[in-house]
């Protein structure tokens, strides 16, 4: 690490804040992704299927919701 001079605290604080904000955002997104996967798996375990999944099995075009 080079000598950051008299304003080292400001430079390190800027990089530190950026790192913390990015890590917090990534954690939030990954946690949300995992939570949705778990909820989806729980519903599938209960035998609930999407309309489009049912239509796909029967070889029909999906109706209603597209996602």
């Amino acid at each position, binding site marked *: *690490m*080079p*000598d*950051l*001079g*008299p*304003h*080292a605290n*400001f*430079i390190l*604080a*800027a*990089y530190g*804040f*950026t790192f913390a*904000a*990015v890590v*917090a*955002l*990534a954690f*939030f*997104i*990954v946690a*949300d*992704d995992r939570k*949705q*996967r778990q*909820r*989806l798996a729980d*519903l*599938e375990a*209960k035998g*609930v*299927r*999407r*309309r489009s999944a049912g239509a796909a099995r029967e070889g029909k075009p999906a109706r209603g*919701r*597209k*996602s």
Partner: protein
Amino acid sequence: MPSLANPTRFLDLAGRLIPWLAALTATLFAVGLYLSFFVAPPDYQQGETVRIMFVHVPAAWLAMFGYALIAVASLGTLIWRHPLADVAAKAAAPIGATFTLIALVTGSLWGKPMWGTYWVWDARLTSMLVLFLLYLGLIALWQAIEEPGRAGRAAAILGLVGAINIPIIKFSVDWWNTLHQPASIVRLGGPTIDSSMLTALAVMAGAFTLLFVLLHLMAMRAEILRRRVLAMQQMQVEQAALAET
């Protein structure tokens, strides 16, 4: 591109791209940080504080890029009713808000030693604060309306109205007399900063852009899954109601 309109195909593609993007982003950040701290020289006026620019400038660019993406996606929602448009807009809002906050905070941390103050109500700083508030408004709107379709249309209108702020941010330093310096990279006549610093800045901008794309893909995937869960819960309720009758 039309195949990406199908959320299932999008999920497949995202699943394949995300590990590669994550590796590429980490590599680019490692190179960018090395260039920022060990290769780029101190500025003749700013001294070592110029190193704050290597995170501040890419964050500010991506803050504006995020909102431009929301504006384009809003058109996709309102005009073409693209099934992924409001998913893309909703997923971009918290990422854009975070990059805007990074730009505001790192800018303040640069401003204190260089200008003698953390904050001034000049046009560039104020329009960036307005951008942050617009992002928060969009996030609040999506949280306030439960039905994704209605929330998407309402947010698309706010997204398009707020897009007027993007050229205001970009040209604020030309239109008004601001403490914030004028454009030094994206300008007619080319960049005014030395190539020894420009290289570090370009690599960091690439790393931040890949990070934005990576997080956006992951957030879109989570949002698509959330909507599937919602649809399945509704089906579960309908099936339970049918069983009772």
